[in-house]
């Protein structure tokens, strides 16, 4: 079974070439919408996107009269150029994906990246691959809704669900006379004899014992490190938290509201499918304390995404397919991306109602974020200030590809349960519950 991975590539746009990149992205978007994108022919891609990250922090309304923006120059004082990012969520390794991409998606890569720094002229797949590897960025943390559930399985199980619904429509009157257990048994027999869905009588692949043991060892090792280091952690941690608390009481808070025109542009891209791609960029507050806090918190997120929030729920939020944090520009900026079900309004409401603490602990290190209290409290609970902050920092996603654009996380999980219920006979009670999934 696949263990998902995430790949990010970032390239600087050549001076004066932004329009050309945008035109190439518009073409790539059309290909996705028309179903002709080469991404679909490369196996193991859950989601993929191309987006522009403006170098000038002012572009997306990051600047604010009361906030000093250091984010438009790197540490050497050079202006940060506009850049294009390619990001994909995969079943295979980033390396294999970049090889496949170089070979099968040459046209789109060339169209977009030929306007970027150092892209070879008329490259062959090997040259593309070398260039992509040179521009790869390792993400600081990533979240996967359900670890180990591959694209192929998701698509197959969706086909199973649709097939079963049609079968039940056609045979409802005969089946209704039976007990739930008998209905289940009869459906199961038909599935067994229908080549298209026969796979479902076998359980879905599960995580290998080796990788479960590995994960367990990682958790054990981390716990051991924390226990051994706990005296040091206390000695360092308490002053650290106090220091952050002092900063957060006086950090400037953005009161900027998103502009009507920029929200209109973003909304024009949203709500086309049952999922939405989200992207935002933030500037980390100045000072090494904030930068180190970000590094530690992202490490904690990476750990808990791997070992705690790995079965369909990110601390109570169940609608996120994938999420990722990438640190850019000498640790001055962070890009956050995700794919979630439903509208941005419902996504933000979920954040505010269920995951406020998790957002505060990472995003409060971003310039202008609504004031927090002891890192965890306040912040996102300031509803309108938080929503304005997100909209002001949001980036458009120029091209977004999904292998299963009409499935919600809830559909995917339900489909997996339907398949799991076909692998054995069920009691009347179990069969009733199973039938309620259809």
């Amino acid at each position, binding site marked *: 079974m696949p263990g998902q991975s995430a790949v990010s590539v970032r390239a600087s746009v050549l001076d004066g070439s932004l329009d050309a990149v945008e035109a190439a992205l518009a073409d790539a978007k059309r290909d996705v919408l028309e179903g002709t994108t080469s991404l679909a022919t490369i196996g193991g891609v859950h989601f993929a996107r191309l987006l522009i990250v403006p170098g000038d922090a002012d572009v997306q309304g990051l600047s604010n009269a009361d906030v000093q923006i250091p984010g438009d120059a790197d540490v050497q004082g050079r202006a940060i150029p506009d850049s294009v990012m390619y990001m994909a969520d995969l079943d295979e390794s980033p390396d294999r994906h970049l090889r496949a991409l170089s070979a099968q998606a040459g046209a789109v890569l060339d169209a977009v990246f030929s306007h970027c720094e150092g892209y070879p002229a008329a490259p062959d797949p090997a040259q593309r691959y070398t260039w992509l590897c040179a521009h790869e960025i390792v993400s600081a943390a990533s979240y996967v809704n359900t670890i180990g559930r591959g694209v192929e399985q998701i698509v197959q199980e969706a086909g199973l*669900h649709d097939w079963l*619904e049609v079968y*039940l*429509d056609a045979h*409802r009157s005969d*089946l*209704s006379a*039976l*007990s*739930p257990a008998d*209905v289940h048994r009869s459906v199961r027999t038909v599935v067994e004899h229908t080549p298209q869905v026969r796979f479902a009588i076998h359980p879905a692949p599960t995580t290998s014992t080796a990788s479960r043991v590995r994960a367990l060892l990682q958790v054990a090792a981390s716990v051991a490190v924390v226990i051994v280091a706990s005296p040091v952690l206390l000695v360092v941690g308490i002053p650290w938290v106090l220091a952050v608390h002092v900063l957060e009481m006086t950090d400037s808070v953005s*009161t900027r*509201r*998103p502009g*009507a025109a920029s*929200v*209109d542009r973003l*909304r*024009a891209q*949203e*709500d086309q499918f*049952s999922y939405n791609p989200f992207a935002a960029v933030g500037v980390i507050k100045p000072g090494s304390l904030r930068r180190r806090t970000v590094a530690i918190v992202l490490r904690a997120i990476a750990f808990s995404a791997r070992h705690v929030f790995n079965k369909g729920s990110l601390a*109570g939020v*169940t609608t996120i397919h994938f999420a990722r944090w990438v640190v850019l520009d000498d640790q001055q900026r962070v890009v956050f991306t995700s794919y979630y*079900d*439903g*509208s941005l*309004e*419902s996504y933000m*409401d979920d954040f*505010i*109602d*269920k995951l406020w603490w998790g957002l505060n602990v990472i995003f409060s290190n971003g310039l202008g974020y609504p004031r927090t209290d002891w890192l965890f409290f306040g912040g996102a*609970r*300031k*509803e*309108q*200030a938080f929503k304005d902050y997100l909209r002001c920092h949001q980036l458009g996603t120029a091209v977004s590809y999904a292998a299963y654009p009409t499935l*919600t996380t*809830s*559909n995917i999980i*339900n489909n997996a349960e339907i398949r799991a219920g076909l692998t054995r006979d069920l009691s009347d009670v179990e*069969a*009733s519950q199973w*039938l*309620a999934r*259809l």
Partner: protein
Amino acid sequence: MAPATDAELDDMQGLLRSAFRTLPSACFGVYTLSDAARSRTFLSRIAARVTSAAARNVPVATQVSLSATGLRAIGLPDAVVEGFSLEFQAGIATPARSRFLGDDPAAWTWGGPAGPQVDVLVCTYARTSEELHTAIAEIDAAAAEGGVAGATQLETLTLSPIEPFGFRDGISDPFVRELASSAQAADPPKAEPVPLGEFVLGYRNIYGLQTQRPVLPDSGDPNNVLPVLSPGADQDNPQGGADLGRNGSYLVLRTLAQDTAGFESHVREQAAASGLDAELLAAKMVGRWRSGAPLAMSHDRDRPDLAEANDFGYHDNDPLGLRCPIGAHIRRSNPRDSLDPQPGSAQSLAVTDRHRIMRRGRKFTDTDGGQGLHFVALNGNLGRQFEFVQHTWLNNPKFGGLYDDVDPLIGPRDDRSVFTVPARPVRRRFAGLPDFVTTVGGAYFFLPGIRALHYLCEGSW
């Protein structure tokens, strides 16, 4: 922050507190403004008639609200208009919002791009149609004098609790303690009251905060007409100022044409084909029987004694929708205790309460015999309340873990759309749902507080 008990009823328009059920005749007039000064004169003539939430037993009630274009047309500076929410500023009929709400404004009879601009809404309510027509004649005379053109007059039918499909309607309105009538206050519902600020701007909302609204520097209100916001009372306006938003609300008006004959024949056909009783199928679509009795409380027969019943949930007795389908209209428009996290808990109810609206609609019959509802909703945050309910609950095929279901009454459909009726052992699925309800007009308005209305009439900004 002002304590909740300080509700200034005499500065709110009466619609916030009452649907004017004692005034069965009503008409909603939509107007287009031209000259700013003359438009304000027209508004002052209307403002003099406006009924506050403190008034009792009036024979005729008048309520006035303005759209964003209307506020600009009377000369309110752009910087002030920008203090309102983005949804209000842009209006209901932008392309992205129409996709979001499932609307097609190009085909609207009013409020769409082809029709006249919608600036002012005057809602008039009266005891008799004679009194109503006298009042409207006076308002129209004032309009003519002010160079104000009538865009459309939305006539309504004499008030009745039964909506055009034949179901009792308007049963479940959020309970707001400060706005309760004396009868309600004496016998309050079991549900937690929803904070006043969810519906009336300038009060604490469900997050304990002030909802965004225009607050002006004191210099913006030279005659001191507006309510005073004291320093420190509002997290977004720490210096205080002149509170243009206070005691106001956002009003959503949508004209919903209802194909009553189509609904009846569809229900009869599908019932016959599926072997389900027609009345039961209709009730499954709505979630209540025609009398109003909720399926969650009586799943096998109509019980008129439960017509007004509203103290019920879904999680404990009907988590799978075997009584009231997950996709039924009332379960979508108010999921009560059935949402994540932890369905059945107070937390689940609290999540639902962040998305409530007050409904004040009236039904109509048009000249061709077509029927429908002039849907009116009041809320403090269009994005989190009205638009959320419409998009994320009613129109969303994925609501509640579903796949391709739409609201069987009002949801926009496509080829995949179905309505699922859970049953043991096997559910029923109804495909090929016709459109029963079509939105044919709509706009967002600001229903100002009464001092704010006088400020807008004066024009000294």
